[in-house]
């Protein structure tokens, strides 16, 4: 069984598992956790294009999540707009804010850009706290439910899984084709990319705006899942969390960050003493991965599997056909 078949098979098995999760999950808590993973993944899939592929280290995406959540809560909750429409608007607004943030900052070198995104998330937090009439300030807002059949936990799970799968398919397509290669080239060597004709700034901006849209959508369903949002939810540590998911999963892959998300979301729940060390643990994990396997844990598995079952390299020795060569030379003369 070659690797292509194994890959397809595991994808099918995975799809079946995901589709039937509510039935084997055990209890509503685990269903809630699964839905949370899906919600996070919507954002992380988009962010993956920015961080993992284009190499723009945005550590302020929690700001865009916050914008998405509050937009949804205000529109669908306070103003009574249809929740589905609100999700679209949240995504749109997320994209617009991504554009507004990206335009000035994407031209800046790495550290400057990271600081700009961090500052952005702090500004969003300040504005949310200050605009008490709009956002409820420190008290926060209730997260509205979706209409039937998505208001039950199982229905909601299917909704977010469907959105997550759609976003995954989008990012996978982008990553596979022209833009994906453009992103990777920008990450690895911007100068060479530019020399070859890749529109560097446009590509970065595109990735960033896309990640803003997914962050907005993720924020909307996040608000609904949490059933209540306050400014305390959107702290810098959440940005770090998204970031670490991508890095440990492996930059440049789609499935890697997905596993990263699953592991990092589920781990503190399963290992309660770990919850206290929470953020310290994320920092430690990030440091270890950066120092030991910067390509991510996915790469580590690849290295291990290479050791255990080395890929057989087909040798195709080239033996020149001397007669034909001689004839060709003779013709030359």
């Amino acid at each position, binding site marked *: 069984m070659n690797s292509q078949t194994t890959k397809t098979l595991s994808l099918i098995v995975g799809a079946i598992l995901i589709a039937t999760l509510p039935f084997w999950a055990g209890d509503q808590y685990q269903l809630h*956790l699964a839905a949370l993973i899906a919600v996070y993944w919507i954002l992380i899939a988009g962010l993956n294009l920015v961080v993992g592929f284009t190499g723009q280290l945005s550590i302020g995406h929690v700001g865009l999540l916050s914008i998405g959540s509050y937009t949804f809560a205000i529109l669908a909750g306070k103003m009574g707009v249809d929740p589905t429409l609100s999700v679209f608007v949240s995504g749109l607004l997320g994209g617009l804010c991504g554009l507004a943030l990206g335009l000035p900052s994407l031209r800046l070198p790495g550290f400057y850009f990271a600081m700009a995104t961090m500052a952005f998330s702090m500004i969003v937090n300040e504005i949310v*706290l200050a605009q008490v009439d709009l956002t409820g300030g420190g*008290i926060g807002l209730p997260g509205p439910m979706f209409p039937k059949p998505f208001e039950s936990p199982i229905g909601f799970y299917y909704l977010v899984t469907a959105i997550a799968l759609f976003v995954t398919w989008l990012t996978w397509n982008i990553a596979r084709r022209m833009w994906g290669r453009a992103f990777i080239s920008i990450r690895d060597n911007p100068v060479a990319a530019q020399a070859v004709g890749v529109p560097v700034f446009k590509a970065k901006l595109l990735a960033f705006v896309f990640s803003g849209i997914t962050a907005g959508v993720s924020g909307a369903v996040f608000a609904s899942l949490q*059933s209540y949002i306050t400014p305390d939810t959107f702290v810098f540590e*959440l940005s770090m969390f998204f970031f670490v998911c991508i890095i440990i999963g492996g930059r440049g892959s789609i499935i890697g960050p997905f596993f990263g998300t699953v592991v990092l979301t589920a781990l503190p729940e399963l290992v309660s003493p770990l919850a*206290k060390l929470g953020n310290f643990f994320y920092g430690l994990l990030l440091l270890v991965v950066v120092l030991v396997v910067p390509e991510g844990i996915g790469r580590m598995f690849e290295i291990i599997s290479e050791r255990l079952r080395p890929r057989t390299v087909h040798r195709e020795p080239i033996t020149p056909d001397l007669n034909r060569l001689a004839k060709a030379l003779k013709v030359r003369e």
Partner: protein
Amino acid sequence: MLRLTKLAVRLSLATALVVSATSALAAETIKIGWLSSLTGALSSAAIAENQGVQLAVEEINKSGGILGRQIELLTRDTAGDPTKAVNFAQQLAFSDKVHFVIGPVNSGEGLAAVPILARAGVPNLVIGAIDELIDPVKYPRAFRVINTNRQWISTANDYAIKVLKKSKVAVIADTSGYGTASAKTAIELLEKAGVKPVYSVLVDNNKTDLTDEMNKARAAGADVVMPWTAATGMLGRLLNARGEIGWNVPVVGHPAIMAAQIRQLLNKPEYWQNAYAAGYLSTTYGSDGKLPERTQQLVDKIRPKLGGGEIDVLFWWVAMGYDTVKIIEHAIKTAGSTDAAALQKVLENTRDYRGVYATYTWTATERNGFPDSNMAVNPANTFKDGSFRLAPR
């Protein structure tokens, strides 16, 4: 051969019976979920409350449990993060299937977790003060043990206006959830009492110096400053600023003003004078210098667990934690079962249940159980062994 098999079958059947019996018995513990922010913001309150909760659980378990069943306390550290609070609430309600949940402590966590518990139908003892946490219709099984924020604010307002006879109020709160909500309520209640604040401001509780705000309040002609923040750092700076600009205005407000940590944050001990905070009769020394009997009993019981020396935390936190478990005991004993609907009915019909922290009364339409009569005002610098003296009237 057959004999051995028969013996084996009988033995295994017997073992199975015993095992199932014991596991059935063991499965009959009463599970109480405790959502506590033991790390992170407001951890000092949560840690003190935890002491009270654990003492009560130990006491009850030692004397045979409730209805013969032992209490199993499931503590979950939410670290001040509403997302964790939601996750743990879900876990406690659906995975661990607890019979009762105490907490969360923080308002932000409470706002997120209380609806989840309500949806799951789990009875919930609320220990956050912010008004929005209680709603007899939306959250029928949530009963508040702590006083409401309104009670704190109106007690302080009463003292400032009626006792100290001040009329020009400056309201200073922090930008947190609690601060913004409290500032709003404080101004609303003041205006209802016919007093419009001359100055009000929201300050980030990490701001390094409050001299500006105090100067502006003074310039606006304020004759009393009312801070609404639980952040001891900010309160310390406020009192320091008041002292440094030499403005002897009374400060009346949030109980944190009298927290023991403030003593170390002050530049001069005198800065703690002329400061009053909303407190409770249950943790106030009477004119004979003695605490109410029930409070003193608990103080003596728990002193060895707090280190044996002087108590250096606000004792009402400990008392409140203790009371929550005792209320659960009372509810389950009276209902005769752990059925959620029965517990709800019992709590709705609780009148004057005497605890250490307060005497509680809930009705079908009133889920705030703390009586106004237990509110008091204490001078901040009279902290001794966890309690205070009564402020002069």
